[in-house]
């Protein structure tokens, strides 16, 4: 149960962090390949989420 709570906190934190990123006003500028530069922070968040999903899958669901 304790382990379950830890995962709940981790995923809630990533979710809240994503909301913070989405809310945050950014200057619109172009980055690599002409994509908006903020898209790379969203991609980073997505990788973070996938990484924790991977760990969750490996460590929690046995």
């Amino acid at each position, binding site marked *: 149960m304790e382990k379950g709570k830890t995962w709940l906190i981790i995923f809630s934190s990533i979710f809240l962090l994503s909301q913070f990123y989405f809310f945050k006003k*950014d200057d*619109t500028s*172009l980055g690599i390949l*002409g994509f*908006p530069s903020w*898209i790379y922070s969203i991609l980073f968040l*997505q990788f973070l989420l996938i990484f924790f999903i*991977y760990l969750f899958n490996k460590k929690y*669901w046995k």
Partner: protein
Amino acid sequence: MVYIILISYLALTFWSSLIGSKTKNETPESYFLADRNLGVITLFFTLIATNFSAFFFLGFAGVGYKLGYSFYAEMAFGTTLAALSFFLIGNKVWKLGKEKGYITPIELIHKESNNSFLKWVYLITMMLFTFPYIAIQPQGAGILLESLTQEEISSHWGAILLTIIIIIYVLIGGMKSVAKTDVKQGVMMIILMIAAVFAIAYQLGGLDEAHQKVFDIKPELFSKDAGGKYTPQKWFSVCILWIACVPMFPQLFMRFFISKDLKTFKTSTLLYAIIPFFLFLLPVIIGVLGHLSFPDLSTKKEIDYILPKMLVEHTAPWFYTLVMTGALAAFMSTLDSQLLALSTITTRDIYLPFSKKKISLQQQVNIGRIGVIIFAFIGLIIALNPIGTIEEIIKMAFSGLAVLFPTTLFVLHYKKTNATACAISIIVGELIIIGMNMGWISKESVLGFDAVVPALFLSTLIIIIGSILYPKNK
């Protein structure tokens, strides 16, 4: 050329379904769940081909044209979040399915909660909100076929023709055929979409240059809030919607039963979490670049067709036909799975409980087959007399299904869940969804959130309070 490509694609689809049907389908588990024996690749492709309907091909590019890259962020992040809910629900569903032989989501909820009232509320809600989604598949496929054949085949006849083709291959082999064709259709969707982006970007002088040109005329397409259209409430609402609604599609839910083991399910789900980050970007790029070739599109139909317009403008006719056939594949792979899921539910959860005599397993399969035909034609009738635009239908159907999420989660993970509270939570949640869509409840009264947020909040609260006050005795 158009007909050669189309006929080749349909022949390939039939060939796949025939391969899928080579093994006998004499038991419900075999026909409806492919013997619970799918491997990683098949399960992964059947998950994405079933979930990414033609909205992925046409709708994403259209909304990309309107809102720009913020829409990509919403869809990609939301779909990865949905993979998390696959883990929360799918693992337990797979285990229970294996142990107790469940075939449908309703069977699982009914037996695990031991409550008939909840069963019927859950069943009616699931079917009611899946029907409109079924109807938009032939509706869209018909329009696509009309455009592909330059109106030689009308959208009505196109919808009828494609529905009949789908009925035939679902009847031949059930889930095995559907899964086999999903793999081909999924691969086709991905390869063709990548090729389309490369071809268009190349014609426009490369991604860097093309982006810069669009940025000069429409900088709001590159902003995170789409020029003020994405409020914090909107972001929150869409993230919550994807988490709750995707695993509740009956055609997706049933895929939690069919993996050959837990490891297969976990690996496929992980791949499902990864794929949106690059796949969803592709149609949105085409939508954004569409402003260079078609800067002043205003009607919804024009905007929804930005992808075919860009292909016609920048690629050869054979390539355009090929990519549009990929869109057709996306329509078909979603519709076949929806038909199979609803016919399974009808056989197992409606016909069997009311049938006085005992029916054999083979008879159950045959009833399922009749169900496929009936539901396909009901969907077709709705498609020929549409009840709203594709966007309106999707919005209502997805939110309606999302309301089932708290009940599913609690029944699976909390033994003291009160089933009556779950049933009440679904009814209250749906009333909020309908009330907000009909305009009876204003958006301001729920702090600017979409209907799904207050509906899920209240539903969850009802289950928690009900289960604390009247816990189920085990």
